[in-house]
């Protein structure tokens, strides 16, 4: 794995992104002239009211759908923009979904080894060896031959993140991956993710509803406006890394939480009074 080499990669530049939906004729603006610069090796946390269009932005980066305006560059290379509205999907941007997307019919080891084998970047043998080493590094040895249906949901998330990292992505796109987990499992996930991040230096674009999660993990927290989605405020989290759970009780953490939640509340209220789907903020 290009552990430290990754630090120089993963600069994501979103410029004036616009995304429209036209379900049954009605034009809905999901993303409106959204610009955001994500630094290489950064954990960038995106928070905002439900249904505000954060996932639309993530899907555009991943190449699952196109943009109606603006551009996205990754390390200087245009992913999508004028003349090429939809980015090509590729192993340089791997998404980890909210409910997980491990292949149920493959063991955890086979899941993790999947990418490099598909890309013909590694032989089967090397891929399995690398995957096994990766699981060992993450403390997941002993689960190699279990199927996703046989392990806990927390374990599944960790395996999925390892599967993503196996592709040596420039940026990891996480869409509320820990939403369905209980608080205790979540905190284990957070520490594991940070630990992995310190090891690989991969840029992380992380969508969440959980303010505590956002501050604990992020270098920066971007608060999005209610739909259409656009950065309302970018907050630098000046708590030094490496972090552990002691941070949660620090004074600085509480100040940041108060500051961000005030901004967020305002947007959540806007979206709530407009009767948007879901409404609340955790």
């Amino acid at each position, binding site marked *: 794995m290009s552990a430290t080499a990754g630090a120089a990669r993963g600069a994501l530049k979103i410029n004036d992104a616009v995304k429209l939906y036209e379900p049954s004729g009605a034009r809905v603006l999901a993303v409106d002239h959204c610009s955001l610069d994500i630094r290489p090796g950064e954990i960038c946390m995106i928070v905002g009211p439900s249904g505000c269009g954060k996932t639309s932005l993530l899907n555009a980066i991943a190449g699952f759908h196109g943009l109606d305006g603006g551009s996205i560059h990754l390390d200087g290379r245009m992913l999508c923009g004028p003349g090429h509205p939809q980015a090509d999907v590729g*192993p340089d941007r791997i*998404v980890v979904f909210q409910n997980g*997307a491990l*292949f149920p019919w493959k063991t955890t080891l086979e899941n993790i080894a*999947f990418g490099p084998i598909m890309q013909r970047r590694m032989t089967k043998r090397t891929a399995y060896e690398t995957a096994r080493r990766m699981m060992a590094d993450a403390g997941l040895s002993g689960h190699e031959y279990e*199927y*996703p249906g046989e392990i806990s949901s927390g374990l599944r998330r960790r395996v999925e993140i390892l599967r993503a990292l196996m592709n040596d992505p420039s940026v990891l796109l996480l869409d509320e991956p820990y939403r369905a987990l209980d608080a205790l499992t979540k905190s284990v996930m957070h520490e594991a993710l940070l630990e992995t991040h310190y090891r690989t230096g991969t840029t992380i674009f992380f969508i969440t509803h959980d303010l505590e999660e956002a501050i604990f993990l992020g270098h920066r927290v971007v608060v999005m406006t209610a739909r259409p989605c656009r950065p309302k405020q970018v907050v630098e989290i000046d708590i030094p890394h490496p972090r552990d759970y002691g941070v949660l009780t620090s004074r600085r953490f509480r100040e940041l939480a108060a500051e961000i939640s005030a901004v967020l509340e305002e947007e959540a209220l806007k979206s709530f009074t407009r009767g948007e789907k879901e409404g609340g903020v955790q």
Partner: protein
Amino acid sequence: MTADIAATPTGAPALGEAGARKLPGFLNNPSVRRACIAIAAALIFWQLGATSHDWLGIGLPVVGHVPSPIAVLKAWHGLIGDPGYWESWYLSFTRVALGFAAATAIGVPFGLLLAMSRYFRGLAFPVFELLRPIPPLAWVPASIIFWPTQEMSIDFVIFLGAFYTIVLNVLGGAREIDPRLVQAARSMGASRWNIFRRLILPGVLPSICVGMEVAVGITWEVVVAAEMISGGGSGGNTASGGGLGFFIWNSYIGGSYPDIIVGMISIGIAGYLSSTLVRATAKRLMPWTRGR
């Protein structure tokens, strides 16, 4: 302490330890024990009902007209040595196997094609839906006219019985595959072929297996009726040539009522064996469902 923990969750006998040791090994399994009790109770009830005229003075309705299990066993005992009876088994099994294999071989690709190509679905699905409600048995006369041999017409009717169920299950299963799995595979650089082979195919497999399990049961329903209607084999004497379905019909015509029941139970056993075989194969094909 340890003995308690070991005994209760496995459902080991509540009879006390001495009683438990006397039981043969397989009876220690509670579900086997329950099955044995249920079958025994049914047999006793049947025997009492069938012989009600002797001990009650009046024959009970329905069960009073049925040959008793002892009479059936006697008839069965006589048939065990009859090659014609076993030939019927063989014939029915071959027909089911042929029709079922053809239905799977054609139904699975057809269902996948329906699921994957909108164009093909638009073309083929209306015809499929128009033909589907026609019961296989309604096809028997037409099938006899169309196909050159009687054997082929029976196989075709069986094929129809299994085909629709398999196709519908494949189609439904393919539509239920999580699109995020496909997105994930695409992101990781899987080609179209690999997405088909490593995603769609294993994703549809559980539905294929369910479809096959249901379909194999239908094939037995159909084979029996088809054989009854098509008439016996070339021999025409006793049970020979006709298959289990014809065996029942022939026993009825010949007035040997216990044989009817023997034929019915034989089909029950045959159907049970086939679906067990399909289920076991399915389990081997899908190791990831082992925990469930």
